[in-house]
């Protein structure tokens, strides 16, 4: 990992340890925006990872429905409008 990636990762961990516990859970997605950012930077490096994280933050707005949205694997399409949740099984639920 590059120095930039390490620094960004440290900043995000710092946020998770100090700021985040105080605001309570607020992210609509799983993994949460900060976990997504950490993983994105680990997998795609500082530049692409940060852009992915920024794109996720923009999608984590009051009009989104949230849900499962994983970091795209290397080589996969990066910036998509729909969520990256192929790993989820679709099960019927009683409330429709």
């Amino acid at each position, binding site marked *: 990992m590059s120095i930039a990636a390490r620094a960004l990762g440290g900043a995000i961990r710092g946020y998770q340890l100090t700021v985040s516990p105080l*605001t309570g859970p607020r992210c609509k997605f799983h993994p949460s925006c900060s976990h997504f950012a950490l993983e994105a930077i680990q997998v795609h490096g500082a530049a692409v990872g940060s852009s992915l994280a920024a794109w996720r933050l923009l999608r984590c707005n009051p009009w989104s429905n949230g849900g499962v949205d994983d970091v795209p694997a290397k080589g996969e399409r990066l910036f998509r409008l729909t969520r990256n949740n192929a790993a989820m099984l679709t099960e019927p639920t009683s409330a429709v």
Partner: protein
Amino acid sequence: MLDTILYPLEWVVANVMVIWHWVWSAIGLDPAAGITWALSIVGLVITIRAALIPLFVKQINASRAMQVIAPDLKKIQDKYKGKKDQASREAMSRETMELYSKHKTNPFASCLPMLIQAPIFFALFRVLNYRLEGNASGSGSTEGIGMLTNEVAAQAQHAELFGASLSDSFFNSPGAAAKILSVVLIVAMVATTFLTQHQLTRKNLPASALEGPMAQQQKILMYALPFIFVISGPNFPIGVLIYWTTTNVWTFGQQWYVIRNNPTPGSEADRLHKERLAAKAAKRAAKRGEDPQAAVIEAAPEEESAQKRSGQRQQPKRKSRGGGKSQQLPVNDDKDLS
């Protein structure tokens, strides 16, 4: 670079303040008085938070819709009952989030609004520090912005609130007046932040969230936060401290409303909410001339037995399902291996 990015926000902040200043002056406050400019900052908070009310309402509606999916949510919780390892927590979180998404309802506020409020705060800091104070001392590029012309900025800079200027900070002020006011505001800021935190964690979290290392850390931070403000606060201009304290008061009030009317299920606030509903039902029954005690007793056990019944009904299903599904889900496979 930072100037260019923040310029539009500074422009908005300055204009909103000047408009509020005009409103306060119009209803008879002295335009050159410190209190008028302090109230302009309060007005700025009101404007920003009022603009965010639709988002707040949306969130409340979403948490109302939660009742519809409550049975499904319970199913997920039962499935992972007693499983405290990381993989099951993760799988549970995934399934829960997916359930919300599927039914287009999500009880969480989302991350973006919080991030948007930070630059506004920073813009106000810059308006007070550079446009007002810099303007007065004649240092740097500090021309007026929007309706905050040089003349208006000079008036704001010379306006004194209890003998202190809005751009004074504890470390950067000539007299004792600003220092005293700064200390008072820092204490108010710490108190409101602490109370908001306390209200959130002690009243509106389910018992399960009050245990474990995360809760412990939250508790430590809640008590450590005042010290952070005591260290950083003296660097903030008085205007920023006013903004922060006011915004805290607003947050506290809004949170109080949510906790009272839409408490998190299973929390202390939820218990009180149900008690109030039961008391109301009893009162209504008394009005109708029925035995109030009967109404309360009727209302309370009904709920309890409903929970028990559903618990019993699900128990046999839960076991077979939990086992069957864990083999289908790749996420759960990891857990079984580890």
